[in-house]
């Protein structure tokens, strides 16, 4: 079967999607980029100010600590969301007893809206009536009780725990679908050869799901970079900017401080960061090497 021949009339079929993409992504992106070089209050005409917004950004301590926070968030997201999603998928792949029940239970938080989750967790985190503090008291760890969302040391981690917990099910489903495509014979061969569970995971499951893993890592990282709603609803970036991330800072600068140009500059940086990370992961030589067949791998991909 040869390669598909390009026919100009195919453009007719992609035109609607391309038009929508241009209107709702490309045009706003260009506008945001241009406006990031202006001082603009949203009402009067924008005034060109060169790269002043970008210079200010790199002297803005709130923004810079926000960058550190989203890098931490991204790392935790990859390890917990993607890692646990893969591990749970590997466990459920074998269609153990109650497989459907566990899959549903893990996936259930995914279908709940972020605002509902934030409401539930804000009650759970409450200093006096929250179930977390009551649980800690109940197991003799009352000294760990806190006002989780009001303590500058815990507010950020308490806030990001919500999306990290919520999305495990999402990645579980993705990995479950990917792992279903791995032939059972490979696992049987591994068991026959005496491999234990961890060896099977590392030598069969992981290599053969690397393509999916790569996509999931990009999704987890870019989600951490741009997520706004959880921080906004749970802490608003507080207390005292201790949970501020670039997305919420961008919102505050744009819609509350009425500094649209500066907010646009922050938005551009979030975009560039996400793009860079995506490119890094997709083009990663080490990940590419992992995808290459090891020298000792059979025709169907299992490591020998």
């Amino acid at each position, binding site marked *: 079967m040869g390669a598909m021949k390009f026919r100009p009339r195919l453009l007719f079929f992609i035109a609607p999607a391309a038009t929508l993409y241009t209107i709702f992504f490309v045009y706003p992106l260009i506008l945001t980029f241009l406006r990031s070089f202006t001082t603009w*209050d*949203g*009402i*009067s005409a924008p005034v060109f100010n060169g790269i002043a917004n970008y210079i200010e950004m790199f002297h803005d301590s*709130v923004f810079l600590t926000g960058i550190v926070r989203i890098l931490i968030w991204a790392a935790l997201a990859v390890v917990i969301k993607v890692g646990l999603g893969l591990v749970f998928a590997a466990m459920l792949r074998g269609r153990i007893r109650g497989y459907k029940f566990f899959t549903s239970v893990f996936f259930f938080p995914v279908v709940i809206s972020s605002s509902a989750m934030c409401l539930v967790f*804000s009650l759970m*985190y*409450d*200093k*006096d009536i929250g179930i977390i503090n009551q649980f800690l008291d109940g197991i003799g760890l009352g000294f760990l009780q806190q*006002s989780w*969302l*009001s*303590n*500058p040391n815990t*507010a950020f981690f308490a806030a990001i725990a919500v999306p990290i917990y919520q999305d495990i099910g999402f990645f579980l489903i993705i990995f479950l679908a990917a792992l279903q495509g791995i032939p059972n014979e490979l696992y049987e061969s591994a068991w026959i050869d005496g491999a234990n569970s961890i060896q099977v995971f590392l030598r069969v499951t992981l290599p053969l799901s690397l393509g999916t893993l790569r996509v999931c890592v990009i999704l987890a990282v870019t989600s951490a970079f741009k997520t706004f709603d959880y921080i906004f609803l749970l*802490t*608003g*970036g*507080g*207390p*005292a*900017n201790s949970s501020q991330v670039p997305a919420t800072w961008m919102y*505050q*600068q744009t*819609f*509350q*401080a*009425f*500094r649209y140009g500066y907010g646009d500059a922050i938005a551009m940086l979030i975009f560039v960061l996400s793009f860079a990370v995506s490119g890094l992961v997709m083009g990663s030589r080490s990940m590419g090497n992992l995808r290459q067949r090891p020298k000792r791998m059979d025709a169907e991909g299992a490591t020998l």
Partner: protein
Amino acid sequence: MRTKRIFTAAVAVVTVITMAAGCSSSNSSAKNSSAPITLNFATNLIGSGASTSAVSEQLIKEFEAKYPNVHIELQTAAGTALQSLIQLSFSSDNVPDVFNFWRPQPAFNMDKYIASGKLGDLSSLAAEPSVKDLFDQSAWTTATVDGKVWGIPLESFSVPFIVNTKVFAEAGLPLPTTWDTLVSDVAALKAKGIIPWMVSQMPAEQSNERLLDYVLDRELGNQKALDLYAGKVSFKSPEVEKALADYLSISVNAGPSDASALTNNAAIAKYFNTGQAAMMLTNSGYLPAIDKAVASDMKVIPFPTIPGGAQTTANMEKDLTALMYASAKGLADPNKGPVIKDFLKFFTSHEAQTLLANQSILVPAIGVKGDPASTSTLFVDVQAQSAAAPGDKWLGNARTPSQQQVFYPLVAQAWTGAFTATQFADQLESMFHK
């Protein structure tokens, strides 16, 4: 002959058409007066947590009943979120026909809205005797910018100092009627495990700076304190650092530990109504949140003057806080314009002001006081003190919206003891001093 017949027919047709046009235009005038009109009303007066919700909904229903062809389409936003909604509406040239908003001052970006030409000039409406005579000159002065009236007064505010007398009595402490007593009371309350101040540290609530405002006003005088935030006076002077030190002495770790996760209403319900907090210094708009069952335990007292301070009278921060505005486009519309004016007059009328006052909301209308049976002795006392006390302007008038975003989190940090007075002065200096 044939030409004559054609000409006659043409004249007849033209005559009929002309008559029909004349009739239809007069008919459409009549129709227009009863043609359906939709007024877009953007407001934070309606919604969960808004004490003005029931009154506002009642007023809208009454207006729609009075004007059957008018439908009020609501755009609601909670609290200060209305500022973002109005900003977006001005940016997108989609200003609501009517909206309530804060004072026409730069602190609320109103200077830009006025300059945009999209905000309606209400000078002619304000000149009508039934409107003009309802409010005193100070309210009209606040509503006027560059000789034009931009809003019709709706609500006032003051910042009363409210203490829970029952908490003080049970703790065996005197009421903080002097500065020295206030300082000793705060320390004693903390020692007894009672939270001295009910306060929300949520930046969006814009209320954690009230105590700082009062101390700065007492120590420096209102105008100098305004000049501080306007960048005209340095924070690094000995008298300002002394004022900040005095402020920190009564504020550090003196609020609820979860204050940054609580709105004002939630903090009042959780701490003030339950007797866990002893004092409250916040916008009088939150008075309705005080449980009527415990309001009799509350007392409003003047915030004490500070020995050696510039202010020797017990001034109170007070001003107009909400006005009704209209879009220029709506006012210019020949059908909508008159309806908008009628709605503004109706919503700020003596009757409407009375309804608001009965909900324990301070109103600017002359001679309107809430019914004590509907409000509380506390509200009556707040009204009386607000009327009698010399007024101070809110210090936030001198801050820009951009500065507010950094200021409120900074004050929240100060409440946790993150700064010494000198460090706090350094932070404020870098933020405000030009």
